[in-house]
């Protein structure tokens, strides 16, 4: 019990004194997950819109697949990216294994189906009368599509934030492809795992508190966005 209390006290000390090691780890986490999220959104939003707005052969299969991939186990993604990037793998020549780039690739794969599937559902839930209204007001086909995406914007923000929550908290994939190298690929979740193993709880607890705070902020923002999207006449 004493060690736990001590751990908490020292954790607060680290946070309050802006410990450089602690903040280095935090920034790398944000950088890796933020980059993965940017790429996943750049690909996932148009894909989700395509799935929601266009009719093409294999569309139902594509939707079911994307929905299934939302639940991809991170360790499996880690394994898959590891094989791709390992020296003997097809992309081994790029020398990316055990680098932040490898971690970004793995987290992009985890975030992409979440962004695509949730964007798709946000877009298909837009009332069809919106497209008609846009059309009656003189919109071109592309402007109609933009009107629908604009209408789904709160759902799209939620999708992006949900994906961010998932990759920030993820440990399996980045541990495998990043290797948890101090000062290079060590991020919050992998540090917590390592420090816990070592029995030195201060840093682990400090990072745990920060991670929880980030999670809390994400959820608070998500909740606000969802509330804003639900404005309806009383």
């Amino acid at each position, binding site marked *: 019990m004493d060690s736990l209390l001590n751990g908490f006290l020292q954790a607060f000390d680290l946070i309050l004194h802006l410990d450089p090691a602690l903040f280095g780890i935090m920034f790398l986490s944000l950088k890796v997950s933020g980059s993965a999220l940017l790429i996943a959104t750049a690909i996932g939003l148009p894909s989700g819109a395509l799935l929601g707005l266009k009719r093409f052969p294999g569309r139902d299969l594509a939707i079911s697949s994307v929905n299934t991939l939302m639940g991809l186990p991170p360790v499996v993604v880690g394994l898959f990216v590891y094989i791709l990037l390992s020296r003997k793998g097809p992309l081994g020549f790029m020398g990316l294994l055990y680098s932040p780039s490898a971690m970004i690739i793995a987290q992009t794969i985890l975030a992409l189906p979440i962004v695509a599937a949730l964007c798709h559902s946000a877009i298909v839930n837009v*009332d069809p*009368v*919106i497209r*008609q*209204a*846009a*059309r*009656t*007001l*003189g*919109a*071109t086909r592309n*402007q109609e599509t933009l*009107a629908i995406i*604009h*209408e789904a914007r*709160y759902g799209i923000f939620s999708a992006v934030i949900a994906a961010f929550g998932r990759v920030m908290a993820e440990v399996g994939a980045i541990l495998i492809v990043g290797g948890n190298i101090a000062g290079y690929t060590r991020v919050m979740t992998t540090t917590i795992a390592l420090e816990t193993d070592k029995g030195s709880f201060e840093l682990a607890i400090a990072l745990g508190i920060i991670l929880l705070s980030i999670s809390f902020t994400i959820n608070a923002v998500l909740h606000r966005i969802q509330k804003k*999207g639900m*404005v*309806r*006449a*009383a």
Partner: protein
Amino acid sequence: MKMLASHIRKEYAGRTVLKDCSCVFNGSGAYVLMGPNGCGKSTFLRICSLLERPDDGELEYWDDDKQLIHGLSLRRRMTLVLPRTGVFNSSVYHNVAYGLKVRGLSPGVLEERVDRSLAVVGLGHKKKQHALTLSSGETQRLGIARALAIGPEILFLDEPTASVDEENTAIIEEVIRMMKKEGTTTVIMTTHDKDQAERLADTLLFMTGGIIEERKP
């Protein structure tokens, strides 16, 4: 702009909604189309406003002696106010500005026209309000303001007062009267209210069995 619909036919899933609809809409005035529920009034308006294609028949639009080609620029000279308005999840202002934005109008012109349209339907004071918080009567008026902003030569109104109280109905009727007086817009509307039809119509049209008949009021 003059419009001619001849021998319009439309089927949905094997059911013939419009059998043989022919009608001429001359430059101005108000045409009121009446008929039982499900007789095809809405479908006819959607076809005339180029929102849907007929299975058969001709639609011609004339500007003096020049026939106009079907396409975006023709579509933008008229508009249909849907019975369910289709309010965009944003401010009243943004809703009314939409039709002007898609036409690429400059912000200055845009603001002036939005203000004017909102004033006409009596929603000027609600400009900044979220459009989804309007009452159903106000929502219907918002739909009309959105249409007025783009200055249509033909304005189709599909049951503009169907789910609206007396006060809002009076405001909407007043707007239609004003447009009749200005004479730059042809108003083509549907209603179930016989008295309203007689109050507003220059030409009364009846639709039964997929055919349109004209009666002088």
